[in-house]
């Protein structure tokens, strides 16, 4: 049997590294291998790579290089921002605000703070995963020290109104810090921390075609933050430990490559997403999550009550048939979401089975969120947008990158069209 071409549609889990990045890192590993803290020339050489990387990334985020710190991953950046930010500012208050659909790196950090005597408000989201600036403004109090909202949701691709939320927070309480988990957004969205009133921002290398093991943390001027790692005092003492020089340089190069052509890349990803969604018209009873034109609030389920399999009082889902939505409306609606994330609910088919069946055809997707799908764990995000109990386990995520093509989307759509009806014949009774 001829082996079909590999179609990798799990780019929100991790990405293939750009060959240019590999070549740069190769050079650093073999030639510029010094410790950036060393006094001699080898050290200076390595330090120069880091400085260049910071300048590149600062140019992208329109900030100063001194605002940037390198960590080991997005989760670490989130931890430093939330825990380090809260500990450094706990004299002003002990209240934090976040949403129910954050990444575990944020939610678990919040849980830790709760165990240390802080209180946390978890905001609900609407059927498409959005939290509004008004909701956040209402939740911020005099003793609120930090708000953490993700830029792009990793499971359904909802893009939160970060700029509006930032403005609303500062209007209500100028002392409240604003952390944005931009792990999924960095490399896909234009992110301007200063304009958006962002105080902390977390990003990760391996989601943007750089290697695993490097993360970025933006800290706004004058913001107090407590370090969580103690050591040699590198990076102003906020993040001790010898810097991952090659990874840092690789991340900056990957970011530069993506941001130099951002508009065209976004359009490429949106076109692929739209094409795939239109192809799904051929499949009965499927739902695309997170697209406002397809999931109408009001008619939809009550997020408050969702997630309980036994709760039969939930109304029918307010989703609209893809074919029933005018093409322009759908196209415009898709362009309000993340270009790279697509969440598909296929009632009657278990996500894990569908995933393995696609894998058989060399197509790689994920079930729910890859970060938690090692355990049979039902997605909090899907619960929060009102996906019902039996369908929580029937949702897969396709996530694209600039390395994907329209043919990849067709291959995935073709595979689903042939696999899903077959799998639906054999459902658990």
């Amino acid at each position: 049997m001829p082996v079909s071409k590999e179609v990798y549609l799990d780019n929100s889990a991790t990405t293939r590294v750009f060959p240019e990045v590999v070549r740069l890192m190769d050079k650093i590993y073999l030639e510029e291998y010094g410790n950036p803290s060393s006094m001699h020339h080898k050290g200076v050489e390595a330090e120069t790579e880091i400085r260049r990387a910071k300048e590149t990334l600062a140019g992208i985020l329109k900030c100063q290089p001194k605002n940037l710190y390198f960590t080991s991953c997005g989760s670490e950046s989130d931890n430093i921002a939330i825990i380090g930010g809260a500990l450094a500012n706990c004299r002003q208050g002990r209240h934090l605000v976040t949403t129910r659909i954050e990444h575990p790196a944020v939610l678990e950090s919040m849980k830790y703070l709760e165990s240390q005597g802080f209180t946390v408000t978890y905001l609900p989201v609407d059927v498409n995963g959005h939290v509004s600036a008004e909701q956040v403004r209402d939740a911020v109090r005099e003793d609120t020290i930090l708000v953490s909202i993700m830029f792009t949701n990793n499971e359904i691709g909802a893009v939160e109104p970060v700029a509006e939320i930032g403005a609303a927070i500062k209007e209500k309480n100028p002392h409240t810090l604003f952390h944005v988990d931009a792990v999924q957004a960095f490399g896909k969205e234009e992110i301007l921390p200063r304009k958006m009133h962002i105080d902390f921002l977390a990003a990760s290398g391996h989601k943007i075609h750089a290697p695993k093991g490097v993360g970025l943390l933006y800290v706004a001027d004058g913001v107090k933050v407590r370090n969580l790692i103690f050591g040699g005092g590198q990076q102003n003492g906020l993040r001790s430990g010898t810097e991952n020089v090659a990874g840092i340089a690789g991340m900056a190069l990957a970011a530069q490559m993506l941001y130099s052509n951002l508009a065209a890349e976004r359009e490429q990803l949106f076109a692929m997403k739209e094409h795939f969604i239109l192809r799904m018209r051929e499949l009965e009873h499927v739902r695309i999550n997170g697209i406002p034109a397809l999931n109408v609030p009001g008619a939809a389920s009550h997020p408050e009550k969702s997630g309980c399999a036994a709760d039969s009082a939930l109304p029918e889902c307010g989703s609209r048939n893809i074919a029933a939505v005018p093409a322009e409306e759908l196209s415009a609606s898709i362009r309000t979401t993340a270009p790279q994330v697509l969440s598909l609910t296929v009632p009657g088919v278990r996500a894990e089975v569908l995933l393995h069946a696609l894998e058989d055809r060399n197509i790689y997707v994920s079930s729910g969120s890859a970060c938690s799908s090692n355990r049979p764990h039902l997605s909090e995000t899907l619960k929060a947008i009102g996906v019902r109990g039996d369908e929580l386990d029937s949702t897969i995520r396709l996530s694209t990158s600039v390395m994907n093509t329209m043919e990849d989307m067709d291959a995935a759509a073709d595979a689903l069209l042939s696999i899903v009806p077959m799998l639906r014949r054999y459902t658990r009774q």
Partner: protein
Amino acid sequence: MEYQSFLIKYAEIGVKGKNRYLFEDALVQQMRIALKKCSGTFTVHRTSGRIFAEAKGACDTEEVVNALQHVFGIVGVCPMAERPIEPYEELEKDVVAFFGEEYPDRRRTFKVHCRRQDKTYPMNSQEIDEALGGALLDAYPDLKVDVHHPDVMVTVEIREKIYIYTHILPGPGGLPVGSAGKAMLLLSGGIDSPVAGWMMAKRGLKLDAVYFNAPPYTSERALQKVEDLAAEVAAYTGPIWLHNINFTEIQLAIYDKCPHDELTIIMRRFMMRIAEKIARRTACGALITGESLGQVASQTMRSLECTNAVCTLPVFRPLIGFDKEDIVTVSKKIGTYDTSILPYEDCCTIFVAKHPVTKPILDVIERHEHHLDDIIEEMVDKALETDEIIIVDAEGKRVLKYREDPLTEGM
């Protein structure tokens, strides 16, 4: 103290009659295999009613004891001090010194027990017991003698050499692996089947195993989990040949043609048939399952009648009278529990009906199975052709995969 020789105690083999040497040889063989994993070189030899393991040069006592504690057939491992045949005065000094080193805290009771196989030794056992007891009491006044329930039993054996030991570390018991032949374990990813395999290996069986895989309903990680479980059992049994069978088509055919509440029973009947076919061609004399009476619908008495009806080889179900808690206790003891509870689905759980039959009637099941008549033989043959043999070894979990012509295989 570092020991170089180890006395092996074995209970059950000792009462065998004319075949006793077979069991003893098998035990020596298994011990040699186990000791190969330890650093150092060892000799294992058997004298009248005793098996000794001796290191040539230094060895890691803890490592050796641990290796021997995984050998079925051994009930006790005694690390010993070894002395040449020496006059009593020398022996007394050695025993006193040995005791002093082993038991720094001497507020205990003790008893000396001497066995004199070498009848040329000038004192008899009784005399040696008394003399050594006195010497120990003189040297360590905190000691007390208790001949009925001593804290410490000081054993001195006088053979071609003199052996002194005070510890008996428990072994797993049972009979040496292979002394009872070979059987085929139906291995799933659950808690029960690895325990069942372990228990039968403990009764002297060498194990082969069969796993039914159902892609895409089961994942690569589910197979990895089964390999890990097999490796954990292999720590006791030596390498296990794991037959990985693709069962998807048969399962879907059953789903298509048979009543859903009988799915599990019919599925298990086909598993037994396939397992028996592999067992026959690999010289296995029985099947082993982890069934426990009444645990689930397919393990009621009537269900077992239905699954049992398809095979002629004996089916060993060592857990049949065990409660789940007892099984869990064993699985924790042998180290398979933590792997067993990993959450990957196996093919037994994917199509389970909400209310499966608990009292199936054999006639009815057979009648429903006839719906499959025109396709099933071919499907079973096809499934047998998917047989992928994975040799799983405990040591570093070396996994060698290869496929071979199923019909010419023999081992």
